[in-house]
């Protein structure tokens, strides 16, 4: 951290001792997992800086935005449309949910068999260590899985600015109509919060801004198809994670800059792993900062991760919002169409996800797929079996992993993944 932000954190009501402990662990993990990698692209220095200031400079920026009258909206899910938030002169940030914290307090509110992601979001609130949550003027929950649906009821007792968005669990014309009504309700709520009416111009600009972010990530993803891979899966995951925190325009520039560098690397066949290293596609639950356990184990087992079929990855970013609309109504329809394509496991049936995994495996020349399920995440764990079956029918080796945020199973994971990687060679 380049400055002392203690006064700022104190003003947000953070528990400084707890927060220091969190940053201490985070810094150490980052050093061991990211900075120890060999031959990293120089452009990753930007992301290293972002991570070093993720609770510092970025929070100061957000607070400066608030002072200037801009509102901050926090979310836990890719179904919250950033376009609507930006168009109403607000900033959308992802909220902390990638590490265990204050678990003993969390388990006074939630059953032990709740997934790590939900428990983490509560831990960061109860432990008072998430400056994003404490900076937010509105926290958006969304009715995805059973756990979240009920957990937001409990979170609503801990915060006074929770807004819950409904989502259909089936894809149909009726489901799309429900989603549209929810996005229109959200638009009104955001406009009321900011006092800014969304116009065709502001919404078009917002759509373009977010699309540029996504397009930059698409460019980065396409470069990972090369062999040798020009960037590690860990670093690419980091870019996908920073997608949720950073200023959109600056993020887009930074990703494009690193892509320029990676294009040169690809041309020079300069990879972070040797050519023909086993290539892995990860599929399944999202990995929020600082949930880097599984990618770290995979990439220290001799394989390179070439893609993430995940909300923090291609599931969350792959589709663009159509920019052709002229009116707010037309653009809202485009937003609904775009988000309704997200093939989250909360939808049943969900054939698009299976097709997408197959497409990704082919496009990224993956030798195998590792399905990552968070313990107690029923939607993804239940989908993992048909996913495994369908992939193996196509002779794509698949390994299903069920884990959480703890480090207790590191040895077990390492053994299983090394054996899987060996099978791919």
């Amino acid at each position, binding site marked *: 951290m380049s400055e002392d932000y203690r006064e700022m954190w104190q003003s947000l009501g953070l528990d400084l001792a707890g927060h220091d402990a969190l940053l201490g662990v985070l810094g150490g993990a980052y050093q061991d997992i990211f900075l120890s990698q060999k031959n990293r692209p120089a452009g990753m220095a930007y992301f290293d800086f972002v991570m070093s200031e993720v609770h510092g400079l970025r929070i100061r920026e957000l607070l400066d935005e608030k002072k200037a009258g801009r509102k901050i909206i926090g979310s836990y899910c890719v179904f919250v449309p950033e376009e609507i938030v930006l168009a109403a002169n607000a900033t959308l940030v992802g909220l902390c949910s990638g590490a265990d914290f204050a678990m003993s307090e969390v388990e006074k509110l939630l059953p032990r068999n709740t997934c790590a992601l939900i428990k983490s979001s509560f831990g960061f609130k109860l432990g008072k260590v998430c400056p994003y949550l404490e900076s937010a003027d509105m926290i958006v929950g969304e009715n995805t899985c059973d*756990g979240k649906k*009920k957990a937001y*009821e409990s979170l609503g*007792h801990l915060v006074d600015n929770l807004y819950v968005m409904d989502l259909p669990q089936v894809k149909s014309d009726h489901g799309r109509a*429900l989603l549209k009504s929810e996005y229109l*309700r959200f638009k009104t709520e955001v406009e009321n919060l900011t006092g800014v009416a969304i116009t065709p111009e502001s919404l078009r600009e917002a759509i373009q801004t977010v699309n540029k972010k996504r397009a930059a990530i698409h460019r980065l993803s396409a470069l990972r198809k090369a062999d040798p891979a020009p960037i590690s899966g860990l670093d690419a995951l980091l870019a996908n994670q920073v997608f949720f925190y950073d200023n959109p325009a600056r993020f887009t520039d930074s990703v494009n800059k690193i892509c320029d560098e990676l294009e040169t690397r690809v041309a020079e066949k300069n990879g972070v792993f040797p050519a023909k290293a086993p290539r892995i596609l990860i599929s399944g639950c999202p990995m929020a900062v600082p949930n880097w356990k599984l990618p770290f184990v995979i990439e220290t087992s001799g394989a390179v991760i070439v893609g993430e079929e995940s909300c923090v990855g291609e599931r969350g970013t792959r589709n663009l919002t159509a920019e052709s609309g002229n009116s707010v109504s037309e653009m809202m329809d485009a937003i609904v169409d775009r988000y309704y394509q997200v093939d989250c496991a909360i939808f*049943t049936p969900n054939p698009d996800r299976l097709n997408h995994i197959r497409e990704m495996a082919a496009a990224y020349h993956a030798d195998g797929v590792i399905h990552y399920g968070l313990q107690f995440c029923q939607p993804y764990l239940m989908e993992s079996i048909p996913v495994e079956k369908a992939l193996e029918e196509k002779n794509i080796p698949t390994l299903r992993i*069920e884990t959480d945020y703890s480090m207790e199973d590191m040895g077990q994971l390492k053994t299983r993944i090394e054996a899987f990687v060996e099978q791919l060679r």
Partner: protein
Amino acid sequence: MTAYYIDAKTAADTGKKVAWITSSGPVEPLIAMDVIPVYPENHGTMIGASKMGVDLCEKAEAMGYSRDMCSYARADIACSPTNGGPIGGLPRPDMLVCCNNICGTVLKWYEIQARYYDVPLFILDTPVIHTTFSEAARTYVRHQVADYIVFLETCCQKKMDRDRMAEVGRLSIQEQKLWQSVLDTAVNRPAPMSAFDAFFHLALIVTLRGTQTAIDYYTLLLQEMRERIDAGIGAVPVERWHLLWDNLPVWYKTKWLSDTFASREACLVADTYTSAWCSSLQYMDETDFLTSMADGYSRIYLNLGVDQMADTVIGMIDHYGVQGLVMHSNRSCKPYSLGQYDIQKIVQKKRGIPTLIIEADMVDARNFSEAQIETRIDAFMEMLTP
């Protein structure tokens, strides 16, 4: 129930169609279409009560399913390829009907079974109601109810008889009222029945809702309860404490739990589980049953927000005059178990009665520690004593 299962098991011979349906799913249109409804969750209760749950859950785990997945789902999925369970597996379905007003797990579970049996699946998606049932959600569900009728007409290759549907709806409402009356008899002292009895008598309101058989059964049961009230016959020998149960039963330990509480002079006079089958009665319209199904099936207890659930619990505490609340934190059921700590706090704040949370599972006995739970029940009973 035996006749019902014989009918269901011989459906292939009698030319009747069989639909598997979720426990709180809209069964009335199936009855109106002469389709035999079969409930994998009821099957789960039988598996649990027969103490066959662990074996079947382990079989599902060997098939690759997580031990953390709902034990009803695991037991049912394992039964399909093995014809396991107390009745040698359920009859093969011609269609599946899944309503997610109870949980999201049923969506994937029924999809797995639809794939296994290669039969059509209809999903009725009922958005959770945190505070109010929005007009958009109501419209969404109503459209799906209309689609449901089309689905049934397509599967059965015949038009629905709307008069028959209206009659089935009327019977269903009548049964729900009767069931509520049966449960209400436990306000008497001594209580003529306990929640453990309700767990048993529940079978028909779930399975045969919308039929005369259920009307006849609950009419007789109500009469018997009234006779017990008149004769002063209670469900437990000595009834000093009146308690409320929350969440599904622990099917393989109902007798043990019943005996444990009874031996401590406690009667569980009511529960939030069995009453859920009449919890949205106020939204059902006898004169327009199909239209009212959107509200009726969306606004059941388990699909409500925590504050509304807490209001229901407090209403039951007052109605049944209970002195303590026993909550089963059910490893299998997230919608029931998440939020229980909030409800516990609300109850303690508003009514100040002792509460007990026991951790277990409805079917998988590996998640039940008898000694630990007995110790906790003893500590709880001590809290009740002034």
